[in-house]
């Protein structure tokens, strides 16, 4: 009690950032003596590594935050000037003339220039309350956000951070096991801390994981995400005006259709504050997918029976395969039951037909009569094949129910192609052809190869004119060649078709060995989900959410004479950037472009002002360049800086990367806003610092 009070007072006096205070408590936990405490405290403050030191004790800090929150409430004297605080805050906001910043950390940073003791205390209180209540996204929170025309850029930004951080991680499991940092430096520190307190940390991590997955908000989000009837995360999309654009943009950038499961997942994950929680939620999603597959329930927001769309992202293709496999399993069950009931019917008919042959003809069971007069059951017959009749028996030809081909996502297509190139295998084609032959034989007793060819490959059969006359068809004495003949290539010696035909047995499709094993395919996909690299997952989600925002914005802005030019320049930029394979280097630029579109929708006056300033700046330099070229120049420069920073030594990676990133960010903003730095400059430190300080928030 007294110690806590003293700590709080000390913090208030020195005006340390809350993160610094947390660092102090963390260091005290190690029970270092006073000298070591001072020594370690100083380097941390200097290098800005407080979040790293904090991370092993996330759970403990949370409880202390709550305790501290209670402590704040015990100071009734400050309540008296509450009105003054509110007035000051209103003045600050009015002066900025900007949309309220929903990120509390950013707000706290903005307050620094106006610091005084009472205001600081209020902000600390708000900060703690915000962390407690907003740490976990909820169904209510996300539903409220859908009132915005497009997803907030903060959500996309969080996904961008995850893409960049994820590219440095080894695997999703590493992200979950990581104490919370995302940089190599933090990971190393985390490891050393684990070495010191391995057992304690392991217990805490397990506790955190189980707490997360059973958290009420997480469970509700999962239920809403997978509710087939719900309208969770549905936005107003003007589908009349730009229907083609709405469907083409996601495919141009290799994203996912609007309102699909992928896009909704992207929006949820983008609301989590740490990479670790994003990873934990994804694992929870994979568990739910396993459950749905086991129960043979369709995934909502994904077509139920479509082959993979290779122009969408791989994640969406894989969801399509899962649903398609469910459809196929359901169909096979129905077809098998139908065949079995037909055979039972046939058995009972046989007993009755010994007495009366008319009985057999009346039943729904299909028979074919052989030349010997024997009736043979047709198995797996689907529908008559036009007016074709079997050459030898004269019976109608039935198209059989056939097996469907493989469901291949883009990665499996590449593997299949490489396999064929490497081995020269034509196995897939032969397997399907053999399967078709067996199904055809089962459905058409008494058939010959020529009958199959007439059905499967019509150009390889030539009818003789005489065969069109009924009398010739039923004249058993007429030689086969009089009715028609196979093509020369089909008659050729060594033709594989004839060899396969001789090999095939009459087996209906549903009784054959499967050409494509649904269980194997989906198990492969679910395993791939568990092993998916973080940058692959978050990259696809980032692109999908980007496509949604632009798709919704297009009909709103395309008719606006002030903004349509800039909007289409932005759209062209994202299409070009996303078709390139180096997404990691472009996410920051894409976020800025998205923010521009968001501004055009939410704050058109300021956006208009920005455009005019850009035009004035262009005019002043005397170079008539299009806004897109300016954007390309700015974002291109950003990419180069990012590329350089990535190539730096690991030991300097965090510091220099942050420094250059901040510098280039400021330069970009400065260019965008032209010659009014005092006004436009102020948002930059806020937005950037919110990114930097975002990581400590757990």
């Amino acid at each position, binding site marked *: 009690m007294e110690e806590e009070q003293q700590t709080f007072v000390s913090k208030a006096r020195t005006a340390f950032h809350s993160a610094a205070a947390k660092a102090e408590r963390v260091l005290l936990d190690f029970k270092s003596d006073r000298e070591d405490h001072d020594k370690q405290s100083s380097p941390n403050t200097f290098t800005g590594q407080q979040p790293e030191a904090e991370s092993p004790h996330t759970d403990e800090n949370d409880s202390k935050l709550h305790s501290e929150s209670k402590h704040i409430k015990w100071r009734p004297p400050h309540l008296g000037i509450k009105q003054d605080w509110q007035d000051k805050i209103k003045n600050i906001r009015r002066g900025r003339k900007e949309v309220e910043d929903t990120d509390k950390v950013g707000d706290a940073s903005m307050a620094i220039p106006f610091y005084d003791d009472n205001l600081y205390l209020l902000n600390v209180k708000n900060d703690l309350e915000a962390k407690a209540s907003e740490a976990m996204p909820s169904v209510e929170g996300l539903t409220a956000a859908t009132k915005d025309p497009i997803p907030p850029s903060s959500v996309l930004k969080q996904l961008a951070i995850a893409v960049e951080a994820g590219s440095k991680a080894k695997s999703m499991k590493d992200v979950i096991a990581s104490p919370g940092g995302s940089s190599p430096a933090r990971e190393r520190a985390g490891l050393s801390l684990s070495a010191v307190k391995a057992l304690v940390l392991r217990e805490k991590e397990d506790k955190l994981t189980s707490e997360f997955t059973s958290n009420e908000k997480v469970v509700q989000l999962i239920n809403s995400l997978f509710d087939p009837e719900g309208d969770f995360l549905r936005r107003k999309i003007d589908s009349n005006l730009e229907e083609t654009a709405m469907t083409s943009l996601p495919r141009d950038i290799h994203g996912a259709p609007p309102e699909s499961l992928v896009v909704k997942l992207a929006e949820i994950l983008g609301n989590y504050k740490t990479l670790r929680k994003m990873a934990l939620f994804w694992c929870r999603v994979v568990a739910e997918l396993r459950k749905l597959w086991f129960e043979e329930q369709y995934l909502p927001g994904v077509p139920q029976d479509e*082959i993979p769309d*290779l*122009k969408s992202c791989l994640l969406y293709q894989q969801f399509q395969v899962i649903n398609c496999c469910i459809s196929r399993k359901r169909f096979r069950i129905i077809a098998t039951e139908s065949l079995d009931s037909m055979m039972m019917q046939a058995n009972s008919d046989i007993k009755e037909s010994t007495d009366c042959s008319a009985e057999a003809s009346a039943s729904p069971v299909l028979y074919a009569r052989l030349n010997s007069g024997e009736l043979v059951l047709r198995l797996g017959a689907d529908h008559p094949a036009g007016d074709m009749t079997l050459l030898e028996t004269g019976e109608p030809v039935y198209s059989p129910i*056939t097996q*469907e*081909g*493989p469901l*291949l996502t*883009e990665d499996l*297509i*590449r593997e*299949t*192609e*490489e396999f*064929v*190139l*490497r*081995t*020269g295998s*034509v196995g*897939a*084609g*032969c397997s*399907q*052809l053999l399967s*078709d032959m067996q199904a055809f034989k089962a459905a058409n007793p008494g058939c010959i190869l020529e009958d199959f060819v007439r059905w*499967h*490959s019509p*150009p*390889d059969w030539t009818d003789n004119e005489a065969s069109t006359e009924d009398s010739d068809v039923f004249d058993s004495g007429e030689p086969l060649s009089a009715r028609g003949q196979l*093509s*020369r*290539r*089909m008659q*050729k010696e*060594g*033709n*594989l*078709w004839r060899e396969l035909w001789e090999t095939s047995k009459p087996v209906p499709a549903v009784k054959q060995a499967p050409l494509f094993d649904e269980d194997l395919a989906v198990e492969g996909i679910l395993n791939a989900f568990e092993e998916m690299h973080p940058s692959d997952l978050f990259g696809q989600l980032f692109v999908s959410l980007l496509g949604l925002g632009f798709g919704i914005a297009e009909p709103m802005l395309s008719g606006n004479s002030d903004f349509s030019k800039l909007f289409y320049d932005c759209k062209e930029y994202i299409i070009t950037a996303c078709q390139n394979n180096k997404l990691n280097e472009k996410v920051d630029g894409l976020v800025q472009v998205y923010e521009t579109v968001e501004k055009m929708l939410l704050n058109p006056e300021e956006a208009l002002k920005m455009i005019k300033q850009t035009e004035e700046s262009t005019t002043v330099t005397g170079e008539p360049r299009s806004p897109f070229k300016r954007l390309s120049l700015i974002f291109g420069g950003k990419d180069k800086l990012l590329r350089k920073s990535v190539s730096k030594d690991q030991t300097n990676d965090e510091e220099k990367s942050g420094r250059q990133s901040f510098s280039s960010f400021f330069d970009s903003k400065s260019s965008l806003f032209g010659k009014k730095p005092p006004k436009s400059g102020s948002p930059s430190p806020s937005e950037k610092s919110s990114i930097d300080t975002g990581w400590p928030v757990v």
Partner: protein
Amino acid sequence: MSSSSGQSSGYDLSFKILLIGDSGVGKSSLLVSFISSSVEDLSPTIGVDFKIKTLTVGGKRLKLTIWDTAGQERFRTLNSSYYRKAQGIILVYDVTRRETFTNLSEVWSKEVELYSTNQDCVKILVGNKVDRDTERAVSREEGLALAKELGCLLLECSAKTRENVEQCFEELALKIMEAPSLLEEGSTAVKRSVLKPKQESQASQNGGCCS
């Protein structure tokens, strides 16, 4: 940059070509005629087959991986995966069978639109079997009109007499090289194959062995 891998001769660019069209129009004969000058009757293709050819066009050494698909309807879904990332697509019809020409616009161009993931891919229309002039059912003018509609070249040829056979593939390769994005893909494919010299060499050998 010039590259080489394993036992293969060096080449600058690597492109994927796809042959499509109705069954029996002569796709396999066209390919075999181009590769080896053979003109014998070929059994109907089952599923998909491929051959690899190296040639020099426009001063560049090219490696073409040419995928030959079975045209029967039952094989259509199976072969749809081979459209992925093809830089060139050859749509073949038989000038003596009008139905095969009609199906190019009613069936095959729709397949291309549906399955091709390469927006810039180059298409070429090929009318085969012009050696059977007395049986011709589709005029050259009709072919040109469809080619214009589909936005591609037309070449009439004969796999049997080898008339225009090499021109088909060379014209296609030249058109592919004119597209910057396809040129980049072809160059990238070469660089990638350098990393797997053993596999690449094996593929080349298998290409030669395939019937």
